[in-house]
């Protein structure tokens, strides 16, 4: 008897595939991209009852093999064994939403027509029961001719039975005399068959999804809905600032202690300075923002898992339509609040190419988590910590207005782009609004861990190396007595040219110096400033913990505000540019993106600076 070595999860979007994938593979997951396309490949290890491992892949959700999006194209090719470099999965695990059989059985027939070893997971059967549906899996098994296992991924119900069925799928398929290839049907015929099979499998059915309809009545209400969404987003941004503080303070203290310990243990040397002033001050000043990034991602992941993200798209469609986009762009743009890279990658769900291009071009204007370290340190240094109303802190309000500026800028840019460079017919908005679900802690935890890891890896690689190089450029050649170290260094001399350009918008030499390495990633600006001022300071006062204090004593308020305005627009992220190049297949659009965003950054930083000076701030 041969055991399968590969299996793939296939099913409609919103069938609960990801939760099932998490439940079957646990944290043993590998996430990468399919070569040549920007569709995420999720693979994990499933352990069979015999103890043997199977590589399980989670294929993108599809409505049909007649592919309408790059995601669906990947699913079709992998299942048919046409994807170069990807083995044809030996067993197909077809995931169906138990509460939506009539719809999901349409694609199911297409999958079964392949005549491959298949196991059906009748998923989310608990939600179907909650909705008053009583199902008969045996009747469905009879109709489909393959094993049907009722599962509740999030409660681990049916997983052992499903795993056992996967182990035996291949041998059984060899015995199964049924010839699925005789099925070839047209879409209306399939739909009719799906309706009949669903009817046959439903033993009894009461009124439809009451909870779901009730929630939609409130959350999609034409007046209350948008207010709730705005309130939710406001709470999200307040939380990012307020809840993260104790954790950030603890991390900050840890970084300080580590720096002190190294100073005490090591003899005075260039190497010690490199460690404390370069590595620990630089990387440490970025690591302390991990709590904020985790909180932001927690909100976004919870929105996605609960089904509210699609409602937000529905609510925002009309506004997005005004600027020539659709509600579909809202999800990539909202993801860009976490990071423009997943945001730009999420644009592949947008069918219209011009819509998609516009969304890619404006995605970097959404305030990504990498700007948070920059905003956070400047706000902490220059905006007083006081309240301006019940539950509304001034710092949170400033942060909110920075986010708002990015959104307004993006909308204006979209409007201009859609009537010039990406001119074309307005695109449609067609999407399924999935049922509401309680987000599961485990799925959130896995998602959060994956995002936090990406951030930490960036901190450990890009930010680490940039910080070290910057420290070297800042520390050599050594300053003569009475001369500032920054002035004397290589980097200091190099930044003189840039300083001339940015002086009119209120930026000083240290800022010019920080902007160069921040091209790699925005948050490097913070570590660069920390490194610069640490090198410049006679003692260790100015390491990470003291950066805010240092800045507030050395910068004027107009300069600080101009610096914030700069970062609302400036496209300082190499990874984003690289992703934009890959997604648009060339340098033309990323080059345009760089140009127009830097122009906006310069313009608005200048306006902010001169306005603030004129107001006497």
């Amino acid at each position, binding site marked *: 008897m041969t055991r399968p070595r590969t299996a793939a999860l296939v099913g409609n979007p919103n069938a609960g595939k990801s939760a099932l994938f998490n439940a079957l593979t646990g944290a043993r997951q590998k996430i990468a991209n399919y070569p040549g396309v920007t569709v995420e490949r999720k693979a994990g290890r499933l352990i069979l009852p015999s103890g043997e491992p199977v590589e399980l892949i989670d294929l993108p959700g599809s409505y049909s093999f007649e592919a309408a999006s790059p995601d669906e194209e990947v699913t079709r090719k992998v299942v048919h064994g046409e994807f170069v470099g990807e083995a044809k999965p030996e067993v197909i695990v077809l995931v169906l939403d138990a509460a939506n059989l009539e719809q999901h059985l349409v694609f199911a027939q297409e999958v079964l027509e392949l005549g491959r070893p298949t196991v059906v997971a009748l998923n989310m059967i608990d939600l179907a029961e909650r*909705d008053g549906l009583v199902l008969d899996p045996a009747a469905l098994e009879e109709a489909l001719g393959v094993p049907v296992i009722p599962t509740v991924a999030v409660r681990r119900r049916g997983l052992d039975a499903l795993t056992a069925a996967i182990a035996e799928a291949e041998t059984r398929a060899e015995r199964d005399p049924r010839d699925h290839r005789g099925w070839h049907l047209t879409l209306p015929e399939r739909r009719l068959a799906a309706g009949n099979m669903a009817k046959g499998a439903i033993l009894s059915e009461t009124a439809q999804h009451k909870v779901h309809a009730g929630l939609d009545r409130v959350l999609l209400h*034409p007046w209350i809905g948008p207010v709730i969404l705005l309130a939710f987003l406001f709470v999200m941004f307040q939380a990012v600032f307020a809840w993260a503080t104790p954790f950030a303070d603890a991390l900050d203290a840890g970084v300080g202690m580590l720096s002190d310990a190294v100073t005490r243990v090591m003899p005075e040397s260039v190497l010690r300075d490199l460690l404390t002033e370069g590595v620990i001050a630089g990387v440490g000043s970025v690591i302390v923002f991990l709590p904020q990034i985790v909180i932001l991602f927690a909100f976004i992941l919870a929105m996605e898992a609960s089904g509210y993200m699609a409602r937000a798209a529905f609510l925002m*469609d009309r506004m997005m339509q005004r600027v020539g986009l659709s509600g579909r762009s809202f999800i990539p743009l909202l993801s860009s609040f976490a990071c423009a890279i997943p945001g730009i990658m999420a644009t592949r769900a947008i069918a219209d190419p011009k819509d998609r291009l516009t969304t890619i071009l404006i995605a970097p204007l959404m305030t990504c988590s990498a700007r948070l370290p920059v905003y956070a340190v400047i706000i902490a240094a220059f905006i007083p910590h006081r309240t301006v109303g019940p539950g509304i802190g001034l710092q949170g309000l400033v942060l909110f207005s920075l986010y708002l500026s990015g959104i307004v800028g993006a909308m204006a840019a979209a409007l201009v782009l859609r009537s010039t460079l990406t001119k074309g017919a307005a695109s449609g*908005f*067609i999407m399924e609004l999935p049922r509401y679900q309680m987000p599961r802690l485990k799925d959130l935890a896995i998602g959060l861990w994956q995002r936090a890891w990406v951030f930490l890896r960036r901190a450990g690689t890009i930010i680490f190396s940039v910080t070290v190089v910057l420290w070297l450029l800042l520390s050599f050649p050594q300053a003569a007595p009475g001369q500032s170290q920054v002035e004397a260094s290589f980097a200091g001399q190099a930044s003189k040219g840039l300083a001339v350009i940015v002086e009119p918008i209120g930026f000083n030499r240290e800022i010019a110096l920080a902007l160069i390495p921040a091209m790699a990633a925005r948050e490097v600006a913070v570590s660069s400033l920390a490194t610069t001022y640490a090198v410049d300071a006679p003692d260790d006062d100015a390491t990470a913990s003291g950066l805010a204090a240092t800045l507030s004593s050395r910068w004027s308020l107009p300069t600080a505000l101009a610096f914030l305005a700069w970062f609302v627009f400036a496209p300082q992220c190499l990874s984003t540019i690289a992703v934009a190049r890959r997604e648009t297949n060339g340098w033309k659009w990323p080059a345009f993106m760089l140009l127009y965003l830097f122009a906006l950054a310069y313009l608005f930083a200048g306006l902010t600076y001169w306005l603030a000076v004129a107001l006497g701030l």
Partner: protein
Amino acid sequence: MTLATTLEALERGRRARIVAIDWAALAPEEGKRLRALGLDIGARVAVAHRGIFGGRDPLAVLIGRMTVAVRRVHAAAMEVEPL
């Protein structure tokens, strides 16, 4: 007696059956997507919600146990017969 109307003009909560679709009014990709979601001739539908602030765009359409968001232009291309 039933009066044919379009899905766009259908009052909220009223159940209806799609009797004709003007495919020419829809982009091919849009037609494909609508069909994949089951919005095709013969489907029983109802309008559950309409867009925000008194605007009528987009629409949340109930089809089977699913809710699908579509734009007014799509709904206007679908002729329905109230049930």
